[in-house]
């Protein structure tokens, strides 16, 4: 597993996402309310660029007629057939047993640690003063 430095933290404010290609793998990194998550940008259903879909919430109902809308901004809806996945875990809400979006652990590391390694910086210059978004792949 290699750790890749993706971006300085302030380049990815909450609610944004960044697409990148690491070793030929399309990855998207999300900042959800200050927490970072990574997903393979390929839908396990038919292969659409999953992470280009809208971020929505999760509509659930314990009884007909009662609807709860939770996890606002934490669910990604595939741009093709609309399957829904939890950004935090990659869990599918359509067919959780058979399908899961590939999730990658994302962390924030201080520049001092990043400069020391063992990290691969993507296309960014790193300096010790800032914090960086780092993904394990």
């Amino acid at each position: 597993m290699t750790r890749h430095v993706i971006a300085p933290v302030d380049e990815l404010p909450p609610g944004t996402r960044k697409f990148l290609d690491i070793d030929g793998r399309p990855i998207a990194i999300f900042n959800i309310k200050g927490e970072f998550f990574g997903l393979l940008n390929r839908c396990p259903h038919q292969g659409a660029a999953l992470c280009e879909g809208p971020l929505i919430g999760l509509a659930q109902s314990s009884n007909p007629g009662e609807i709860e809308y939770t996890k606002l901004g934490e669910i990604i809806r595939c741009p093709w057939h609309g399957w829904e996945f939890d950004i935090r875990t990659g869990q599918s809400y359509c067919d959780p047993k058979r399908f899961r979006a590939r999730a990658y652990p994302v962390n924030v590391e201080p520049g001092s640690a990043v400069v020391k390694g063992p990290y691969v910086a993507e296309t960014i210059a790193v300096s010790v003063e800032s914090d960086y978004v780092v993904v394990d792949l």
Partner: protein
Amino acid sequence: MNVQFRAEPSASVSLKTAIADCDIHPARATKDELYPFLAKRWHSHLETYGIQAYHGMMEGPPYPKAQPNASRRDAWPPEGGPQGSSLSFMQKQLLDPYNVALGVLNPLATGQGLRNQDFAGALCAAINDWQIEKWTSKDKRLKASIVVANEDGIAGAAEIRKRAGDPNFVQVLLLSRNVEPLGQRRYWPIYEAAQEIGLPVGVHAFGFGGNPLTPSGWPSFYIEEMVGHAQCQQTALASLVLEGVFERYPKLKMVMIEAGFGWAPSLAWRLDKTFEKLHSEVPHLKRKPSEYIRDHIWWTTQPMEDPERRDHLFQTIEWIGWDKLLFATDYPHWDFDEPSRVLPAGVSDANREAFYLGNAKKLYGIA
């Protein structure tokens, strides 16, 4: 919500073997894109009176349907305009990566199903000219469907005959929801003309005949509309068979587009069983209903039923015939089928080739 769309093809796939895509929906980039093909009289008609359809909703059917314009979110052309309106983007996103050798265009939102029949005819003719000008003359892989003012069989037949022998067109296009079930005699001139010029008639799900989507009224959910299209298609197919359309037009070939096919065997079984008891009501039928269906009907694959056990899918296809299925993506619509992902493993090479390309080439007469 911060969504960064990239105007690039989503799929990194590229297919080696060529395929046919028998259901592509081209769209107009702007409303006035049709004006060059419409007489001035109709420009002012459109601007003065708008489009009046048979259904009761002022703005047409409810939108969005699951995704904006019922389309893939990654299919907005980079130069603007709705999904499906840019040839160069369609080439980049669909035709080139998936190695589409034959793409059959089925325009929706044409003049079909309008109450003013003269206007309907003029709009359909304009759409047909536009398909040549904007699509088929610019990319030889694309072939057009002749759209006709379906509720006026005589005018529809005239438009079909006008296009006879034009290699830009490979089928006549109707929709499943009409004022009456599709086998009824107001539609016969269309079938007669199609048989005469040797083109199959495609029946695409949708359309607005003024009736609710289901036989018992308006359902609550879009998901009911999605499955309701199969019910409409069944009504259309039963009507075509029972009115004796295939007896009258024995060379007629028809394509059921975008309504699934898993229901075909059970509809045919049920028709056959009932026919045993009631054949004296329809003495013009010389064969069992299932025989007409198997001989005259082709089926596009999007949407393809996806049963848990693939042998159930294969059994259904065996009943229909591996020679009767036509692969379709439904691009750019949101229920798009990715060509490399739709067919389960376990299909012979010959059937696979027929499914993806051979059947379509044969049916549409493409060398």
